[in-house]
């Protein structure tokens, strides 16, 4: 190689090397779902706590436990941990819990906690946030975009809390607007038309600009009583699936961009099976949900269903058989989540473990279902049963 060639190649090698280094550094961020946050019960205190399960080492570790010291003359309900969720880069997580549920001083509490790095832990307490009870806190993870969490408060008020500065601002929208998280926590979705009338569901789904609150409608929901609990949106936001409350036979109603609305019957499951649709596969071709099927007069089976949109047979994987508590009060708490790569479903049964009709101790667990395994291999992470004295917030 002579000198002119070396001189000409040097910039090329520097440029290519710099670009390669940049790409390697940028792609090093990848949510690998190796660690799963879940709610457990601290066996020492009996309190709801946040734990993390490491799928590589198959070990769990308690991370956070909110405890409210109680004076003996003013007994009050213990804090109820609602949910933990990872924040964007996976180095921090957000925990949400409710206190004062038995009196008028109810408040929602949030904590941003560093997970695998040193950094400040921040806690926030937001009293008197809701009019309609803590429904929205249980329904979905809290919508977080950037460093701001959005909390539905009342029918037309949205609270914006900056998790870095603690700055709170209120946004007044039209009545009946509810914000939802997006699958990647990168934008806001909304449901409009939530008037509070139990016989009327949302009538519009769309994207909400998190800064200007400008609405971009994506789907008009014609059914009058679409269920907000049984609803899923695909990652490319081109499909919206939902069920309609009190429909005799469970049916998936599917809205697709540029396509006529269609339905998928779930009748093959069984007439009395309830389904809560929750997620689409990353490609948007399979719907995942939880199911509950009555097993005798006082017992139920719980598990997950996979509903292919191409008409292939619906697959069900039973996780809990013959759980006590035949009523459906706790079923909305049986909420599945899906890994970023779409290979694993996670669901925990802690909330079915409250009260006298609790599930068996061996059924109180975090379940991880391997969707790549033809037999749907299930990993069970035990959760201690909560003390009998603790009432379930779902009943």
């Amino acid at each position, binding site marked *: *190689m*002579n000198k002119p*060639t070396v001189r*000409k*190649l040097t*910039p*090329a*090698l*520097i*440029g*290519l090397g*710099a*670009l390669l280094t*940049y*790409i390697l550094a*940028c*792609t*090093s*961020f*990848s949510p690998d779902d190796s660690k799963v946050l879940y709610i457990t019960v601290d066996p020492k205190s009996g309190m709801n706590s946040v734990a993390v399960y490491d799928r590589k080492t198959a070990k769990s570790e308690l991370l956070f436990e909110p405890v409210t010291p109680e004076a003996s003359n003013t007994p009050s309900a213990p804090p109820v941990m609602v949910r933990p969720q990872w*924040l*964007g*880069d996976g180095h921090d997580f957000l925990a949400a819990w409710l206190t004062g549920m038995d009196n008028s001083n109810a408040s929602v509490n949030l904590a941003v906690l560093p997970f695998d790095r040193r950094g400040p832990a921040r806690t926030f307490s937001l009293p008197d946030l809701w009019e309609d009870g803590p429904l929205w806190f249980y329904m979905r993870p809290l919508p977080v*975009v*950037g*460093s701001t969490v959005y909390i539905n408060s009342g029918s037309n008020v949205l609270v914006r809390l900056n998790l870095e500065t603690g700055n709170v601002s209120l946004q007044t929208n039209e009545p009946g607007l509810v914000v939802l998280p997006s699958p*990647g*926590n*990168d*934008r*806001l979705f909304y449901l409009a038309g939530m008037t509070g009338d139990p016989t009327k569901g949302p009538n519009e789904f*769309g*994207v*909400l*600009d*998190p*800064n*200007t609150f*400008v609405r*971009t409608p994506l789907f008009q929901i014609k059914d009058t009583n679409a269920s907000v609990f049984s609803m899923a949106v695909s*990652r*490319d936001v*081109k499909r919206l699936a939902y069920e309609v409350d009190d429909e005799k036979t469970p049916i998936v109603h599917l809205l697709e961009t540029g396509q006529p609305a269609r339905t998928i019957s779930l009748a093959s499951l069984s007439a009395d099976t309830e389904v809560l649709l929750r997620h689409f596969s990353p490609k948007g071709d399979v719907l995942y949900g939880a199911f509950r099927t009555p097993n005798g007069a006082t017992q139920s089976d719980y598990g997950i269903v996979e509903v292919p949109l191409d008409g292939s047979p619906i697959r069900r994987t039973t996780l809990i058989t013959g759980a006590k508590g035949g009523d459906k009060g706790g079923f909305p708490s049986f909420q599945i989540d899906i890994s970023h790569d779409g290979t694993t479903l996670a669901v925990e049964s802690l909330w079915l473990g409250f009260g006298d009709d609790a599930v068996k101790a061996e059924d109180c667990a975090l379940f991880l279902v391997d969707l790549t395994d033809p037999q749907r291999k299930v990993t069970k992470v035990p959760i201690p049963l909560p003390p009998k004295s603790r009432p379930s917030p779902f009943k």
Partner: protein
Amino acid sequence: MQHLLFTIFSSVCGENPRHIWSPGGVLLPCCERCTGLYVGALIAVVLHLWLRPRISKHFLQVHALCLLQLGLFAFPWLPDSPALRSISGALFGFGVVSFLWPAVSDRFPPMRAGHFATGAYATGLAASLGLIPAIAERGGATGAFILIWLVSAGALALAALVGANLFQCLHACSPRSATSNQ
């Protein structure tokens, strides 16, 4: 289309959801820094095609700083924001294009640098630094589509430059080329 772009860019960008703009609720296919990189690279290519700057040692030294500035963001005590990430990406894009341009400079012979060319180049660089965050933060859905097109075009331009440089490197390292050089 958006899903396809997201999939394509996922091979070269971590797509950290906390670092992706969604102007008007429309998600960009790559992170803020990569948006800066690809849009910056596109503008740099356009400026190189138009102004044909001579790739001198001094020119490369200045642009080496554009590459090195990215290392500063590894330090956690430095301020970080979406706009800063985008600006650092755009500077890096200008730096990379400058180092990759000699491979194609034979096809686009350089012209002598003058005050106008230098000024125009500097203006283009400064404009791209300010324009990208402005469009992303204030452009709404229209801005999102503009950025998606610019990012896609920038990625294609950069891919073409990378291809030309790889070809040049492989050609120079081939035994036949080595023999002819002797």
